[in-house]
């Protein structure tokens, strides 16, 4: 690999200062970033590791109710820690990559990267979570801007994510077995004030909410309510693993399965 500088700050403030340098890049679990750097698809001159920042670790009940997850918390820890309080989110975290990847990869890293086939953007959007950074709080609805694009500004660091806990929820992931990302994934979450449905792996613009399904499920929370609905294949991903039409079909099927499993 090419040469670069690795720094390991112990506070968010020090990390933010280190990220002020030109070409500096935050490193969380590195399970996507390190392979990307090996291929020179990313070439930061300085990596700022967030793993040693105590205040970004762990899972806690937040002041407003629900769950606060530190951004540098690994998938394996989330899977363990929220199994009782938010089982659908625990299952989502437990299905990312493989066990060794889950021991390094983090929620903050996944959200900041916003891979169009990643699981966490889907779980975060379906939950109506709030992404806290060192500068502000961003609603999930405003956070995911497009393909690998988020509302984060240059050098802004995700510090934690606040999840309200739904009364029922389920994540259905149709595995792409080679990459272990979702070929398509759908999360359905039912809250007192309405149902949220988020879809990953399908759109060329990244994770999105399926509002038509949400409206139908608000009237009648059953798989039958979404049986007649379909998403348009326009703008959906089409590759060797599945055509846009196939992905559109999967969105409907997985939504029904998620509702049935709630």
């Amino acid at each position: 690999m090419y040469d670069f500088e690795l720094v390991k700050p112990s506070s968010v403030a020090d990390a933010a200062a280190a990220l002020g340098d030109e070409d500096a890049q935050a490193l969380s679990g590195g399970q996507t970033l390190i392979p990307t750097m090996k291929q020179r698809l990313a070439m930061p001159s300085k990596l700022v590791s967030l793993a040693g920042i105590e205040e970004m670790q762990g899972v806690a009940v937040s002041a407003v109710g629900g769950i606060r997850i530190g951004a540098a918390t690994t998938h394996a820890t989330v899977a363990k820690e929220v199994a009782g309080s938010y089982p659908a989110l625990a299952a989502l975290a437990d299905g990312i990559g493989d066990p060794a990847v889950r021991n390094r990869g983090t929620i903050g890293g996944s959200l900041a990267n916003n891979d169009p086939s990643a699981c966490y953007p889907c779980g975060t959007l379906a939950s109506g979570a709030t992404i806290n950074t060192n500068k502000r709080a961003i609603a999930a609805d405003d956070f995911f801007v497009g393909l690998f694009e988020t509302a984060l500004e240059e050098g802004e660091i995700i510090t934690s994510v606040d999840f309200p806990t739904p009364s029922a929820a389920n994540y259905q992931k149709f595995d792409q077995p080679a990459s272990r990302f979702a070929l398509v994934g759908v999360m359905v979450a039912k809250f007192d004030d309405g149902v949220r449905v988020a879809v990953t792996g399908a759109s060329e613009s990244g994770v999105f909410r399926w509002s038509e399904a949400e409206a139908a499920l608000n009237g009648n929370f059953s798989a039958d309510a979404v049986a007649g609905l379909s998403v348009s294949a326009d703008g959906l991903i089409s590759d060797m693993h599945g055509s846009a039409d196939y992905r559109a079909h999967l969105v409907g099927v997985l939504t029904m399965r998620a509702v049935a499993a709630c």
Partner: protein
Amino acid sequence: MAQVSMTVNGKAVSGEVEGRTLLVQFLRDQLRLTGTHVGCDTGQCGACVVHVDGEAVKACNMFAGEADGAEVTTIEGMANADGSLGTIQQAFQDHHGLQCGFCTPGMVMSAAALLKDNPNPSEAEIREYLEGNICRCTGYHNIVKAIQAASDAQ
């Protein structure tokens, strides 16, 4: 260059590494612990799995500088104190859980991580846990049998 210190297989070690030095390079090239293999170098194949602070990780997907101060266990640390094969290693030999042997260090380290958390895994749980360890010889069948036998022996 930065100084890193860690405990590897119970022994305190230290060395000079660059930012880009991967943990697997530090283990293999500087410590000469060449039992940990580099297969794909992309985080897919699992031949480089080691334990860092008791958790299985892919050593090609972590920088040596990130393991500063950590407790690392490699395949060389899996043998018994007298040099004989550890329970999992012996089970791999007894059940022919390897052919070319390239993936074996990672398989044994993943198996050890699984059995630590789940001492009596079902066949399905073993197969699912090995998602990130690829073997091109065995068809996995004897690897699964070996891990079942190790589970019984422990």
